[in-house]
């Protein structure tokens, strides 16, 4: 019988993320740890280097607006059809944060290389893009296996972040967490040195020995802290539990157009201060 893993609070998870940490975080989709983002902002973490795997949305805009991020690496930050990300836009236009532009599959491939313990990985496409011209950490070599030489191909360095975190549907008392089809969360956990997880529900049993759930489970071997946080992804979605609150996001985008509006949003939503009407 494996040892049971103690639950932490979301504030304890946030406290494990030091200033200057190198994070890699999944895109805003089912399983975004918004409650943990709020706790990080309350804790005042600074100078983070964040790789969004492969794109950012609300959690990127919140951390940027709150001044937590020094460098962002991503293939895009937006709210899709709901609108553009105002704090991201302003921070890049003013130079307040450093940006390393990428393209989605290059980030996935780099995290997969991290998972495999190899220093880099080749990837097709990208040649001719200015994304490549501005990335002095990406290289182009000729395919060593090409008959007759030639066949240039891009190499990207592996990504092994200090920490990744996300919100999962279930966690069990042994520290295993179930992410289902969100397999990139498992890839991230395998590549990261530490993985922190907030979970929607507690699972009464061992996820690693349940034949129907084990393929969607991440072993506690990779996980250094779990907090039970119902509704931990809201106002974003958690598939099977709740949908994205589109009105909340539209209102956020409108309010966060200005620094003052963003501060008022944080005050109300993150710091929980009552605001006079």
């Amino acid at each position, binding site marked *: 019988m494996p040892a049971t893993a103690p639950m932490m609070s979301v504030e304890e998870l946030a406290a494990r993320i030091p200033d200057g940490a190198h994070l890699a975080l999944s895109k805003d989709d089912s399983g975004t740890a918004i409650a943990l983002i709020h706790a990080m902002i309350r804790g005042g973490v600074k100078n983070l280097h964040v790789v969004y795997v492969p794109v950012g949305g609300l959690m990127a805009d919140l951390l940027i607006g709150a001044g937590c991020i020094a460098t962002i690496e991503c293939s895009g930050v937006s709210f899709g059809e709901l609108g553009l990300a105002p704090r991201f836009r302003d921070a890049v*236009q003013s130079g307040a944060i450093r940006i390393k532009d990428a393209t989605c599959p290059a980030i996935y491939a780099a995290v997969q290389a991290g998972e495999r313990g190899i220093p880099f990985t080749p990837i*097709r*496409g990208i040649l001719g*893009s200015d994304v490549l011209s501005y990335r002095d950490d990406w290289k182009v070599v000729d395919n060593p296996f090409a008959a007759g030489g030639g066949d240039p191909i891009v190499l990207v360095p592996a990504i092994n972040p200090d920490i990744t975190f996300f919100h999962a549907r279930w966690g069990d008392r042994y520290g295993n967490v179930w992410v289902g*089809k969100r397999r990139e969360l498992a890839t991230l956990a395998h590549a990261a040195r530490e993985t922190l997880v907030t979970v929607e529900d507690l699972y009464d049993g061992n996820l690693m020995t349940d034949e129907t759930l084990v393929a969607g489970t991440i072993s506690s071997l990779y996980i250094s802290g779990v907090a039970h946080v119902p509704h931990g992804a809201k106002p974003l979605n958690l598939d099977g539990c709740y949908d994205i609150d589109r009105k909340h996001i539209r209102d956020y985008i409108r309010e966060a157009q200005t620094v003052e509006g963003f501060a008022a949003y944080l005050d109300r939503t993150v710091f929980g201060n009552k605001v006079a009407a």
Partner: protein
Amino acid sequence: MAFSREEQLICVIARMLEGQRNISVGTNSPIPAAAALLMERLTDGWARPLLLGSSRHYPANDGGVEFHDRAAQGRVDVFFLGGGQIDGEGNINLVGIGAYPKMKVRLPGSFGSAFLYLTVPRVILFREEHSARVLVPKVDFISAAGWSPPGVFRRGGPYALITSMAVFFYDKDRHRFRLDYVHAGNSVDDVRANTGFDFDLASPVRETPPPEPDRLALIRGEIAAELAHLYPKFAAEKLGYTAAAANV
């Protein structure tokens, strides 16, 4: 039968999807998504749409990387790209306007374009705004290149460019667009006046055919209902789909 601009564009795109099977659509693309769902319906499920951002229309379960790995293998037949700027050689810019990195106008970013433009055989460029601001002589930042020199692995690239005014096809050998259709109410001169790059003319340039009535009926019915799962606001406002409009 009267039709809207959006309905017209859905039908224009659908005609370019005939015979295409694995039709993938990026985020924030309700019109291409509607065209893909229409083709699935018209082919009784032979055509397989994959809508990024959807859990309902996403036939993949091995993480975000699976879609890109499929494209790398040549298993994605069609994809759609747009651009804050698109130039006459088919280069697209999704990063911003001005000098990189502190740009005058920062856009979201390149997403998968730098990779998908080279690995997907048929990429349809779709941008509703037809103006000299968008269709420029040369993009400020190449998110993805319209063509590649000999010796570079490239499975595909730009196939056509569809806007609210016109349809251009791309000549892969000459790296240039050719104007083939103008939508009703626009002339070749209108297109020229609103296009910042030089382009060729088909002979003749035709008027875009109106939506097929049977397809229009499907779009307003079944397709709108299906699309509303991912794009409730678009389905409600542009296709008149009013059920389940609570969370738009």
